[in-house]
C-alpha cells in the first residue's frame, strides 16, 4: 500500500483531500461529519466582517443526463458570528487532531482588521490560514475578495499586512477572474505568502428561466453573477495551475489545487501539474462526504500500480510536458484507425469529420448498417472521431511520423518548408 499521507507547509493530513472553504465547511456539524467520513482536512469557510446572505444561492448547468456539470453560487463569506465560528473551530481541532484545519480569512481592507482577525484565529489551534482573494461576488463591491486578487499591488500589500501578524503558515487563494493568475501569484509570494491555492470560482451566468426571463439563481425576480465551479471548470483550473507551477517565482511555494476535483483521477491530474494537495467542494455538495472513500482508495491503487510510494513521487511530473506551441514537433503525425470489430455503426465519427473536419472518413452505405473507414491520406490526426466515438478503443490513433527527426515551427519557417495544401 502506498502512503497517501500529505504534508503541506508542515501541516499533516492523512490524505491530500481537503474540503475547500465553502458551505460544507461552515459549521462544526458539517466539518465533524467530513472528518468522520475521512477527509484529510478542511479550509473553514471564510471569516470576516458581518454579512447577510440571500435566498436562493445556487444554480447549476446540467449536461444531458448529468446534473451539476457546472455549479455556481452567490453566497458570501460566513454569515455566522465570529465567536461561534472560532469556538467550533477549536472543538473540531480538539476532536480530530490528526486532520488539517485551515481557516479562510477575508478581513476589511485595512491592516488593523487583518491583524485583529489573525490574532483571534491563531488562538483556536488551527494549523494555517488561507487568504480569500478570490470571492467574485458580494465582497468585491466592498473592496474585498476578488477586488484584492485582481490587483497585484493590493494583493501584495494585504499579504504583507498578514505576514506581519501571522505565526501560522499562510496560503493565498487566487481568483481566476483575471487575464493571468501569475502577476497576483507572484506578488503574493514576493510579499511572503507561504503557499498558493487556486482557483477560486469564475464569474458566471449559468442560465435563464425561459418562462420568467430571470437568470439563475433567482432572487425575487433578479440575479447576479455567481461563482462558477464544478467539473466544468477543471480544464481552466488545470491551465491556471500550470502557469503557476511553471513560473520560477510562484513554483517555489506549495500549491493547493482547486477547481472541479470530483474523483481521485482529477486529484492526480492536479498533482501531476504541480499541486501538492487538492481541495474539493462541488463534488461533495453533489454527493455528500462519502466520495472521499473512493478518492483515497483509487489514489492508493493507482500509486501501487505505478510504483509510487508517496505523493512526492509523482507531484509535478507533468509540469514540463506542457510546452510552447512553437516547440511542438511538426513531424509528429498520427492517423485514426477504426476497429471494424468494435464499430457499432453509429456514424458519429463520419458526420463529425465530414461536416466539421477534413472529410477523412469513407461511408459505404448499408441497410441498416453503414461501414466507416479512414482515408489515411486525408486524415490530419485531429482526434475528433476518436473523441465522439461511444465505444472505448474502437478508434485509435496510429503514429505515422512525417519524418524521423524533431522539427519545430521556428525551424520549419527558417527552412522555408511548404505549408499545407488542403
Amino acid at each position, binding site marked *: 500500500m502506498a502512503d497517501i499521507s500529505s504534508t503541506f507547509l508542515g501541516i499533516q493530513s492523512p490524505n491530500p483531500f481537503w474540503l475547500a472553504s465553502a458551505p460544507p465547511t461552515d459549521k462544526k456539524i458539517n466539518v465533524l461529519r467530513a472528518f468522520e467520513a475521512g477527509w484529510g482536512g478542511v479550509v473553514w469557510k471564510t471569516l470576516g466582517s458581518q454579512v447577510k446572505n440571500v435566498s436562493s444561492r445556487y444554480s447549476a448547468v446540467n449536461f*444531458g*443526463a448529468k446534473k451539476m456539470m457546472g455549479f455556481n453560487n452567490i453566497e458570501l463569506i460566513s454569515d455566522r458570528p465570529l465567536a461561534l465560528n472560532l469556538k467550533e473551530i477549536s472543538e473540531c481541532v480538539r476532536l480530530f487532531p490528526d486532520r488539517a484545519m485551515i481557516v479562510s480569512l477575508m478581513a476589511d481592507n485595512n491592516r488593523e482588521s487583518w491583524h485583529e482577525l489573525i490574532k483571534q484565529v491563531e488562538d483556536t489551534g488551527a494549523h494555517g490560514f488561507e487568504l480569500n482573494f478570490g470571492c467574485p461576488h458580494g465582497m468585491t463591491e466592498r473592496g474585498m475578495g476578488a477586488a484584492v486578487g485582481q490587483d497585484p499591488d493590493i494583493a501584495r500589500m494585504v499579504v504583507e499586512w498578514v505576514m506581519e501578524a501571522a505565526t501560522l503558515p499562510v496560503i493565498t487563494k487566487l481568483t481566476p477572474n483575471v487575464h493571468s493568475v501569475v502577476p497576483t501569484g507572484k506578488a503574493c509570494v514576493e510579499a511572503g505568502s507561504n503557499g498558493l491555492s487556486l482557483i477560486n470560482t469564475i464569474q458566471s451566468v449559468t442560465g435563464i428561466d425561459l418562462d420568467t426571463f430571470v437568470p439563475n439563481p433567482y432572487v425575487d425576480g433578479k440575479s447576479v453573477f455567481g461563482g462558477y465551479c464544478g467539473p466544468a471548470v477543471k480544464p481552466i483550473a488545470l491551465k491556471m495551475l500550470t502557469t503557476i507551477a511553471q513560473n520560477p517565482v510562484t513554483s517555489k511555494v506549495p500549491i493547493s489545487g482547486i477547481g472541479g476535483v470530483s474523483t481521485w483521477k482529477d486529484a492526480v491530474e492536479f498533482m501531476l501539474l504541480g499541486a501538492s494537495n487538492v481541495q474539493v467542494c462541488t463534488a461533495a455538495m453533489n454527493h455528500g462526504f462519502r466520495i472521499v472513500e473512493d478518492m483515497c482508495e483509487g489514489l492508493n491503487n493507482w500509486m501501487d500500480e505505478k510504483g509510487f510510494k508517496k505523493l512526492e513521487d509523482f507531484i509535478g511530473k507533468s509540469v514540463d510536458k506542457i510546452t510552447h506551441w512553437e516547440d511542438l514537433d511538426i513531424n509528429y503525425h498520427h492517423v485514426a484507425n477504426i476497429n471494424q470489430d468494435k*464499430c*457499432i*455503426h*453509429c*456514424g*458519429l465519427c*463520419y*458526420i463529425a469529420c465530414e461536416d466539421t473536419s477534413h472529410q477523412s472518413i469513407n*461511408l459505404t452505405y448499408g*441497410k*441498416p*448498417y*453503414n461501414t466507416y473507414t479512414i482515408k489515411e491520406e486525408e486524415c490530419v490526426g485531429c482526434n475528433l472521431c476518436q473523441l465522439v466515438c*461511444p*465505444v472505448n478503443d474502437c478508434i485509435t490513433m496510429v503514429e505515422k511520423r512525417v519524418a524521423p527527426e524533431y522539427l519545430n515551427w521556428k525551424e520549419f519557417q527558417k527552412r522555408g518548408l511548404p505549408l499545407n495544401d488542403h
Partner: protein
Amino acid sequence: MAITNNRLTVDQYAENFSDIHPPFETKDAALTEANRCLFCYDAPCMKSCPTGIDVPKFIKQITTDNVKGSAHTIFVSNILGAGCSRVCPVEKLCEGACVYNFMEEAPIQIARLQRYSTEKAMELNWKLFERKPLNGKRVAIVGAGPAGLSCAHVLARAGVEVTIFEKESKGGGLMTYGIAAYKVTPAFCENEVNYILSIGGINVQYNQTLGKDFSLESLQQSYDAVYLGIGVGLARQLNIPGEQLTGVEDAITFIYNIRNNGFASVPVGDRVAVIGMGMTAIDAATQAKRLGAKKVTMVYRRTENEKPCTQEELDIALLDGCEVIWLAAPKEIIGEQNRVSKLVCSKMILGEPDASGRRAPVDTGETFTLEVDMVIKAAGQTPYYSLVNDAQLQHQDGKIKVDHGAITNIRGVFAGGDCVNGGKEVVDAVQAGKDGAAAILDYLNVS
C-alpha cells in the same frame, strides 16, 4: 367443456387487457432514456422503420424540451406514429437495429419514447400540420385503415379534398379491429383517428362497403382519383374435414369481436387450439387465455426457427401460459353433436426449402389428437379476390398489382397496404399510404 362468454369479473378483464407496454410515467423517466440515445448519423433505427421516422431527431427533441417538435418529427413521417408506438414489432424494426445491440446493451426504448411524444400531442391536441389552400382536387379513398388514413392526411395537407369510404362504423382498420386489445384500446384507436382527421378536409363515410353500397366506377366518375386501401379480410381456410363445426372460428373474427363487442360478450372455449404462429395467431391465443380459456395450445407446422412472429410476441404467449406444439399440422376436426371435440394433427418434419426460403414441413404420416372445444384458425388472410377481379384490377392471387408502389392498371386508381402486399405491419401500410398520396399528387399535378 363448453364455449361460454362472461367468464371473468370486470376487474379481471381490466387487468388481463391492460396496457402491455406501459408508457413512461414521468418526464424524468423519459428523459433518462432519451439521454441514452447516441444520436446516430444515418441511423440504423431510422433506416429500419418502413416509414423512415427520423428517430434520433425526435429523441433529441425530447431531451431539449421540444416535445412538440418531437411529435411533429414522428407524425410527418408516420401519421399513425402514436398507434405504431404501441403495435409495431420494434424488436425486428427500429429497436432491433439500435446500435446498442452491438454493445450488448439494451437498445433505446424507441417505441416508448415515441409514445411519450405522440401521446402528449394527442392529449393536448397539438395542431402540428396546416393545410395548403384548396386546389379544387377531390380524391376518394376506400378504407379508413392505416393506408387510407395515411394517404388521406398527406392529400389533405396538400390542399386536396378527401372522402374516405369505410365499411365499418369506426376508422383505424386493422388497428381498431385486428390487434390485441392489450396493445391498443378501442378508446385509443378512436382518439387516434379523430386526431388524424382533426387536420380537416377529410370526410369519412362510415358503413359504406365497396361492391355493395358503391362501385369503383362511381368513384372514378365523381372524383379526380381513387385510392384503394381495402386491406385483406378473409381468413384463409384450412380445407380439412370438420372446419364447419360449431366452435371453429377464424382469428380475424375472434379478435374483431373482442375489439368491437367488449370482452365479456366474447365466448371462448375451455380448451382452445390456435392454428398458426403469426402475429394474429399470437393475438388470438393470448386473448383467448386472457378471456378465461383454461388451456390454449398453439399448433404450428414448422419449427420455432421458422416462426413468423417475433420472439417477443411468442414470449407473451408463453408467459400467458399458452402451450406450443411445433411441427404439427391440423388434419381433421372431430365433433360431437356438431360441436368441436377434438383436433387431429399430423406430425411433420422439415424438408427442403420452399418458395419462402424456409424449410417446408413434410407429413410423417403419424398423427396425434388434442382434446379441444374450440379451434381458432390463424393461418393467414387472403385478399378480396373477387372484389379485385371484378373491378378489372390487375392482380396476383387477389393482391392488387401496382407500379411505383401505388399505381394500378386503371388510370386514376391507386392502391396500397395489405390489399397490395397481402398483409404486413401497420407501419408498412402507413408508408404505402404516403407512397399512394405522392403518386396521386403527381397524377393530379399538385405540388
